């Protein structure tokens, strides 16, 4: 088989339904969220790189990037970044546990998924509360 057809026939072939028929389950959603939080962290790291450069190059440069950490939008971004970080971190722990064959039964995996979601929110809140108290 050398080359696939290029007359558009391949694009018109029917596809089995997936998102339209699969019942959304927590474990499924958490897997998607793990990927999305990863991308969010990637983009957040890009923004933080700009912020750190502004911090390094003097008050003028800092003025251009201070919106990343200060102001309403900035706080929302940093809050989202920290949540994505803890969510992705706990997701990694979840995968590490599954790698060892633990919590793979129906109740166990639901528990892990819930713990990841809840734990991520708790860790985020804890960090922000402690940070506010410390500063």
């Amino acid at each position, binding site marked *: *088989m*050398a*080359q*696939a*057809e*290029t007359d*558009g026939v*391949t*694009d018109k*072939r029917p596809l089995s339904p997936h998102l339209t028929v699969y019942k959304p389950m927590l474990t499924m959603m958490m897997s998607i969220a793990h*990927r999305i939080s*990863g*991308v969010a*962290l*990637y983009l957040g*790291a*890009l923004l*933080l*790189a700009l*912020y*750190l*450069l502004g*911090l*390094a*190059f003097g*008050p003028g440069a*800092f003025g251009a990037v*201070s919106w990343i*950490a*200060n102001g309403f939008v*900035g*706080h929302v971004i*940093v809050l989202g*970044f*920290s949540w994505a*970080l*803890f969510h992705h*971190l706990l997701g*990694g*722990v979840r*995968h*590490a546990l599954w*790698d060892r064959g633990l919590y793979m039964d129906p109740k166990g995996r639901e528990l892990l998924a819930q713990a990841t979601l809840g734990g991520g929110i708790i860790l985020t809140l804890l*960090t*922000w509360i402690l*940070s506010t108290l*410390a*500063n």
Partner: protein
Amino acid sequence: MTSRTQFISGRTGRGAAYVSDASGAEHDRFMRLSARALLPLGSLAAWYIVGLSGKSFEAARAEIGRPFPALALIVFIAIAAPHARKGVESIIEDYVHDAAQKEKALLVNKWASIAVALLWTLAILLIAAPR
């Protein structure tokens, strides 16, 4: 991806579907090891980054300028950048079907992650440098 086996998928027409290139295990191993290292490093980084929000120029510099936060953030990005790069590589491999676009996207990803790591490190070193 290390191999260039040109399997032409009927579904994607002319696009090439990258099939097994035997690099999966190494990818997996790196992701799991780096994830373990990122447990403490990521938590530390989160703490310092959250601490930065709302701070003035001088206060933020004073915070990052101390040796421990500076080193923690540098080591964090040194490991997080390749981890993130491999993660986004998986995403590109999954969702970008056109061969040319896939190559381009993987290239952009590679250099963006290298740039982010170097710029973080440079910026932190500049901030922490003694006067």
